[in-house]
């Protein structure tokens, strides 16, 4: 069921509300409709086309338009850009006042406070600085005030207290210089202005850097086309994607992006699904095949019927899932959260203690000034943001990066766990292998060619529905072999089939069938035995009483399984093959892909127990399966990987969904996980070290020993850069490459 939001105009009273609601509720397919008078919006639930809703509202005498979702990235970007510019402007104003004061002050060119001219100069400077505090720093002060009113303290509190103290103290010195000794008569207006400038500048840079962290989700949203070409009452028209209804027919032309999910009803083409599955090879699509929103049609043209629209499309669900995962936090970040939540008041207390310590024990002639400056520096240098940002920002980039590789990670915990796995259990069928039998080898006898063997056997099997027969017919189709006419077809129980094709007797089956019909297979029987050892099912083919060759069918191993499994071993994991098949087949497959441990003859219901038994041995177990019959085992495992193919993803079932069919996704996920967790640790370490070292140094603990005191402006710079550093470090994850 979909929710459509409409913006309404013309409604002014409760009466209007009920009229619009009645009109909407009368539209067929609407389950519920409610109007919000304050917002002038309507929210309608049900599978119904937006244009029908609009005409219902218009029919009731009002006007309506579809409210676009929050995904309008361009609007969001424009707003962000405006905010960015505003921050830069604020930084500039602060710098214009602060930098000359700083430079001339350092050069000793500013007047003293012991004469009237000097005091007037400083008074004007004080007022200019106040202007900076109000214009460039006003938001810190209002933020600080509002949160304080709510019994809360945040970054704004620290900045406002720090710069506010600097200004107030300097004004006191200007107004009553006699209150402090001459040697301590120093105004800190430039510090206040420059700190405000630096923090605004840092925030602007951080915003820029943060925008990059969400690139992955923006790219996903960007996959969604804005319009679709629908056919209504025989006419083709381009309409907004929000107005596409269920079951509508949509035309897709060459090179176009598919608008919603659906099923092809006419035409065929190849479709590039790489943006969803990470698989580079375009997929053949014909009538009856599913297509999904966001993928690109290559050369052909086709019509399809919309089956999933709006929030229900695979793309929308992926976006939703990536979003949710990006904002979830793994256990590793919880400590930082705890610290962050009590951080600001703690820093305020440290600042007061610092003040008192300097006031009581500092050098007598500079006591008050040093006390104020150190307390102010403590307030300014402390940066809870870096601490709070350390985890989520890396998760955001890591999860986004994974999505680019066609890997959907459910949440931060799954991301963190994946890197720590030490055992990977691979389900055989559909995970290591293709999951459906296919012709793997054709061995001709005598003068026969592979094509001839395939042609005769496929012709004989074309009426059969047995999976092995199907594999043979598909192989013939793939090689574009035309089939011959079949007159008679009969299954020989436990042996194979016999058919009359093009007037000739064709036999297809096992050794027993050939023996019973006195066919000489002596030249090929060894080859058949060898195939059996490779976990294949060889079938002898005889035409008109003579052996033609062998067609061997097997659930083929995926092309890249062997390489992917080698990568798992390279990552230091224990790999186990799990299957319901018999031991011989399982071992043959394991041998071919290089797995040394096999659990065969395992019933689906026992798979979860196998996982549990490994866990009891103290292993952290990852289970890879196709997400349907492996569901209990996937759920039981510390991390469950569902292998899906873009169109029928079992998004709900696993911690990690590999949209492409390749096992490489498992080692890719593990690599991304390990890199992300390392990144988080770097960030947390950096943020903790920064604060635990920065605050004591700012408080002046080094002063008694080596005479060093931190300049508050340097503290401001360090603070502004600390969260930028965290964001930039997380951004490094964007350059992660798969399969290296």
């Amino acid at each position, binding site marked *: 069921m979909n929710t459509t939001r409409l913006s309404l105009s013309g409604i002014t009273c409760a009466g209007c509300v009920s009229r619009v609601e009645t009109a909407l509720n009368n539209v067929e397919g609407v389950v519920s409709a409610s109007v919000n008078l304050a917002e002038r919006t309507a929210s309608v639930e049900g599978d119904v086309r937006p244009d029908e809703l609009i005409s219902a509202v218009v029919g009731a005498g009002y006007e309506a338009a579809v409210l676009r979702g929050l995904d309008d990235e361009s609007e969001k970007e424009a707003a962000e850009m405006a905010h960015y510019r505003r921050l830069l402007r604020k930084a500039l104003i602060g710098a214009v006042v602060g930098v000359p004061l700083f430079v001339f002050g350092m050069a000793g060119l500013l007047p003293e406070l012991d004469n009237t001219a000097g005091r007037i100069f400083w008074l004007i400077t004080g007022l200019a600085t106040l202007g900076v505090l109000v214009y460039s720093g006003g938001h810190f002060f209002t933020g600080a005030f*509002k949160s304080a*009113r709510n*019994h809360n303290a945040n970054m704004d509190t620290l900045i406002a207290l720090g710069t506010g103290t600097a200004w107030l103290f300097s004004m006191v010195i200007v107004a009553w210089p006699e209150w402090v000794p001459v040697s301590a008569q120093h105004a800190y207006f430039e510090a206040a202005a420059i700190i405000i400038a630096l923090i605004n500048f840092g*925030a602007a840079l951080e915003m820029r850097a943060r925008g990059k962290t969400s690139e992955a989700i923006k790219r996903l949203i960007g996959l969604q086309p804005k319009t679709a070409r629908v056919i209504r009452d025989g006419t083709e028209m381009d309409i907004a994607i929000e107005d596409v209804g269920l079951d509508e027919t949509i035309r897709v032309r060459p090179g176009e992006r598919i608008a919603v999910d659906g099923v092809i009803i006419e035409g065929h083409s190849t479709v590039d699904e790489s943006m969803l599955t990470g698989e580079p090879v375009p997929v053949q699509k014909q009538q009856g095949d599913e297509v999904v929103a966001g993928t690109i049609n290559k050369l052909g043209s086709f019509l399809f019927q919309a089956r999933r629209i709006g929030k229900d499309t695979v793309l929308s669900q992926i976006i939703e899932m990536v979003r949710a995962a990006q*904002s*979830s936090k793994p256990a590793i970040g919880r400590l930082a959260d705890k610290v962050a*939540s009590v951080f600001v*008041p703690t820093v305020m207390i440290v600042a007061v*203690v610092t003040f008192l310590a300097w006031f009581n024990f500092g050098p007598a002639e500079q006591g008050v000034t040093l006390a104020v400056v150190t307390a102010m520096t403590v307030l300014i240098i402390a940066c809870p943001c870096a601490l709070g940002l350390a985890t*989520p920002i890396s998760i955001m980039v890591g999860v986004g990066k994974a999505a680019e590789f066609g890997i959907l990670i459910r949440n931060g915990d799954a991301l963190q766990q994946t890197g720590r796995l030490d055992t990977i259990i691979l389900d055989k069928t559909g995970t290591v292998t293709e999951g459906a039998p296919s012709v793997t080898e054709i061995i001709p006898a005598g003068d026969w060619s592979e094509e001839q063997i395939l042609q005769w056997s496929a012709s004989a099997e074309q009426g059969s529905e047995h999976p092995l027969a199907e594999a043979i017919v598909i192989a013939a189709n793939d090689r574009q072999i035309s089939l011959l006419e079949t007159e008679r077809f009969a299954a020989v129980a436990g042996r194979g089939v016999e058919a009359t094709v093009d007037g000739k007797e064709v036999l297809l089956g096992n050794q027993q069938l050939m023996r019973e019909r006195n066919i000489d297979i002596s030249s090929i029987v060894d080859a058949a035995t060898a195939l059996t050892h490779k976990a294949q099912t060889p079938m002898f083919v005889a035409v008109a009483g003579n052996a033609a060759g062998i067609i061997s069918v097997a659930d083929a191993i995926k092309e890249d399984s062997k390489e992917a499994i080698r990568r798992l071993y390279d990552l230091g994991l224990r790999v186990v093959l799990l299957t319901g098949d018999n031991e011989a087949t399982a071992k043959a497959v394991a041998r071919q892909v290089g797995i040394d441990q096999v659990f065969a003859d395992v019933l689906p219901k026992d798979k979860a127990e196998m996982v549990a038994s490994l866990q009891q041995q103290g292993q952290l177990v990852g289970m890879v399966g196709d997400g349907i019959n492996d569901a209990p085992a996937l759920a039981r495992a510390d991390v469950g990987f569902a292998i899906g193919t873009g169109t029928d993803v079992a998004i709900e079932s696993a911690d990690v969904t590999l949209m492409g069919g390749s096992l490489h996704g498992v080692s890719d996920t593990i690599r991304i996980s390990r890199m992300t967790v390392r990144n988080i640790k770097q960030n947390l370490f950096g943020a903790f070290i920064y604060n635990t070292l920065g605050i004591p140094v700012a408080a002046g603990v080094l002063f008694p020993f080596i005479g060093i005191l931190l300049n508050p402006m340097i503290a401001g710079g360090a603070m502004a850069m600390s969260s930028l550093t965290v964001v930039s470090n997380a951004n490094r994850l964007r350059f992660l490459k798969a399969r290296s």
Partner: protein
Amino acid sequence: MNIVLVNLAGIAVIVIIVWWFWMSQPTAQRARTDVIDILVEGGTYTPPRIEVEAGKQVTLRFLRKDASPCAEKVVFDKLGINADLAMGESTDIVVTPPEPGEYIFTCQMQMYRGSLVARREAGTPS
């Protein structure tokens, strides 16, 4: 004398910080409807503390007027909710606090803080 006064003032400030930020809570606003408007502005959620009934579904309608990137997400850690707040728009978050207790909601960095206080309905046995 001055020294004593300054020290006393300093200690008083510390006591005030501890009391105001840690010991006391903002007054809770009791939810009168199923939809509660929360304004995100100037680094705060207003109202910061909302009283609701445990086990009952409420819609929290966050209106974001704060352009700072800090305001772009709201996280209910205990309830497993993470939501994006679009600038200048209102975002509905439907929550059902399962049992009585305090459910803190914060920005990603824990700097913006608010709380949902779930109480047992009057008259129901505890």
